[in-house]
């Protein structure tokens, strides 16, 4: 039995501890916002927060989450109120949208660490997340906008 917290709720699961966290989130917990893209930490579509750090859940065995706190895209906010979500909507970032959960989760860690990120900071934090639709320019703009929204305290 593995026990951890997902989006502020405790879960107890009887699963093979070697199973990647990604598949436990998606198949055992029904949290399908976290995506499978490559299975080898190359694309970032599976990015979640483990005790606040961005991890690639496709290569993290679920045993690594034991006793820890996991946040997925579903836990970023309940109502699209996170400044990044507001900025993503304002810039109409997504195209197909498949990679965007991972993009947002990577950006959320960046924004917490660097409230006013530079372009170089964005390059550094976001380079692990592939977007095949090519929305990078809008992602960059949206991160800068989210930083402004957050700084203005206009976040409800």
């Amino acid at each position, binding site marked *: 039995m593995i026990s951890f917290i997902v989006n502020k709720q405790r879960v107890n699961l009887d699963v093979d501890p070697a199973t990647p966290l990604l598949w436990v989130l*998606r198949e055992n917990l029904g949290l399908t916002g976290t995506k499978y893209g490559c299975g080898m930490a190359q694309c970032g579509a599976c990015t979640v927060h483990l005790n606040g750090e961005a991890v690639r859940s496709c290569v993290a065995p679920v045993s690594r989450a034991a006793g820890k706190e996991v946040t997925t895209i579903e836990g970023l906010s309940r109502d699209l109120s996170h400044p990044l979500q507001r900025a993503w909507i304002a810039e109409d970032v997504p195209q197909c949208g498949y990679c965007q959960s991972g993009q947002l989760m990577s950006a959320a860690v960046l924004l917490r660490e660097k409230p006013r990120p530079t372009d170089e900071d964005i390059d550094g934090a976001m380079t692990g997340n592939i977007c095949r639709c090519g929305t990078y320019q809008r992602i960059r703009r949206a991160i800068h906008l989210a930083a402004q929204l957050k700084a203005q305290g206009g976040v409800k």
Partner: protein
Amino acid sequence: MSTIVNCSRRNFLKASLLAGGGLIVGVHIPGLNGSAKAAQQGISTFVPNAFLRIAKDGSVTVIGNHSEMGQGAYTSGAMTIAEELDADWTKIRVEPAPVDPAYNHPIYGVQITGGSTSTWSEWDRLRKAGAAARQMLLAAAAQTWNVDPSTCRTGNGQVIHTNSQRRLSYGELVEKAATLTPPQNVTLKDPKDFKIIGKAIKRLDTPDKTNGKAVFGLDVNVPGMLVAVVARPPVFGGQLKNFNADKAKAVPGVRYVVEIERGVAVVADGFWPAKLGREALEIVWDEGPRASLDSRTQREEYAGLAKKTGVVAKNEGEAVSALSKASKKLEAIYDLPYLAHATMEPMNCVADVRADSCEIWVGTQFQSGDRDAAARDTGLKPEQVKLHTTLLGGGFGRRSPLDSHVVREAVQISKTVKVPVKVVWTREDDMRGGYYRPRAYHTVSAGLDGNGKPVAWQQRIVCQSIFVGTPFEPAVVKNGVEETAVEGAADLPYDIPNLLVEWHQAPDGVPVFILRSVGHSHTAFVVETFVDELAHAAGKDPFEFRNALLGKHPRHKRVLEFVAEKAGWGKAMSNGRGRGLAVHESFGSYVAQVAEVSISKDRGLRVHRVVCAVDCGPVVNPDIVRAQMEGGIVFGLTAALYGEITFEKGRVRQGNFHDYPMLRMHEMPQIEVHIVPSEDKMGGAGEVGVPPVAPAVANAVFALTSKRIRRLPIRMTDAI
């Protein structure tokens, strides 16, 4: 397969697309029948035609028959309807269409999304659908008030009686409107009265794509569903000889191991045990005749073919003799590789096959083909197959294979194990699973006269066919030439009096299919880098040289001039950067791009800025067009810098993003998109940003290093 009407893209474009403003036009919008009716039946809902319904709460549901794969089809289609409906945009939602002839592509005649056609091909039909509904709501209000309909108007989801200022919302009119007969003729708006079309309205699908709620095929879960991973032959065309499933079945969570047409499926409680089970399978394959396929020997084979006369795709004047008389002759050979679509969402499909029904959930571009394939595999009638289209995590052509192989795997497995099954392809399955952009080998020669004016152009293209042997062959293959192989070359826009373009159908090597911008993805590279070469040979500026040859093609000329001005063409460059230019028409739209690059041995090739001008005719949503240009540029740049699928011993050498890289954030150039105001025919947007970027970058490399790039992806050894 249902009837396929002529699907030559150029022929579509000849059709008049723009109904004039304020014109009364006849309406022939499909009504509801079969599954469409079943899906839409409801009490107290106004269903004027197959494309929308209005509920009592005033909500308008638009039925999206073009799959949403990121290109914005749901939003632009809804905008087109909402405009003529005079709807309240905040009350619009979109749901995917069921499979029904009502939703067939107006040109292709089957239910399919592709060819950058979703907006322009539905322009007429969706406007009429909205206008017919509006007219019925207006009539319902007039009847309610017992006034003449001509004294009423509509706006923002309401009918207003002008004199008395009485108002009824569309929701309040649903019941009465539902009793009226749809009109035979409708009045379409004058475009100057558009309130929604032409505006950068936010996409309807964005909120759900920022909170994890959007449902892609891979996210579908149905009760009792198991997950399957399939072992397929390591070489295309290989066959299963025998297998031993004992070890696979011993993996906890594995429920079944079954043979299907394409290989061996391991069916388990979840993806992980299914994948472990597949790894434990012991399989002997008959690898078949392609086990010796090798990209290097294939190049020699293609080169040999290119030395022989091919099938003539275009022949104007006397290219061969004009070439021999030219005062300057240039020749080049180009080799462009197989490319994988690499959609972010790997292939997948859920199927639930029962004795008398089959239900499918899939992010597909080809609903009617998939439905028919499922009917054949199950022995059911097409109407017993219900297909749900999910969102697509990228399409680029990969999700419309004519053989419906992904769907068929799921159907065959579910039929065998008798439970709902989700087939999941791993990234490696996807990368090695075929349906690539064909490898293309071009030889091209051109001659200049004494004044540096081009007098002849001869081009030979060697590549596999995409459509020969498929139901689309009659529409795409004309006089032995497949349009997708020569498009962008046979219709060379430059004023060159002697033009000869030939095609060799390369022997079947691997499964090939359409990939974003199809033939243009290789022809534009060859044409636009070689024209650049001619310009330099003629001692002319690449912009001036092209511009002087585009007299018969005003739309090319316009975007070229537009982009040159916006990019500051001709102005001095700083920071060791060089500029390159390209212009190309595809899918009825005209795009010119200027790339700014720098190159050095230690820092490599960097693309800093791409300026893009597009003329796609009247625009429904300019921000979606901008997004498609941005995305197309990234897609084309990824191919130019990295894209290459190669074979050794019949096997694809690449497998995942470490060896088939994608452009990433830190490599992203600054992209500036300029939409050129245009009242000309509407064209596409989804693919048209792709073709010019690779030649623009290669031409910029030449500007810096005087090296011509003749193969892609660009290698540093070729560039410096």
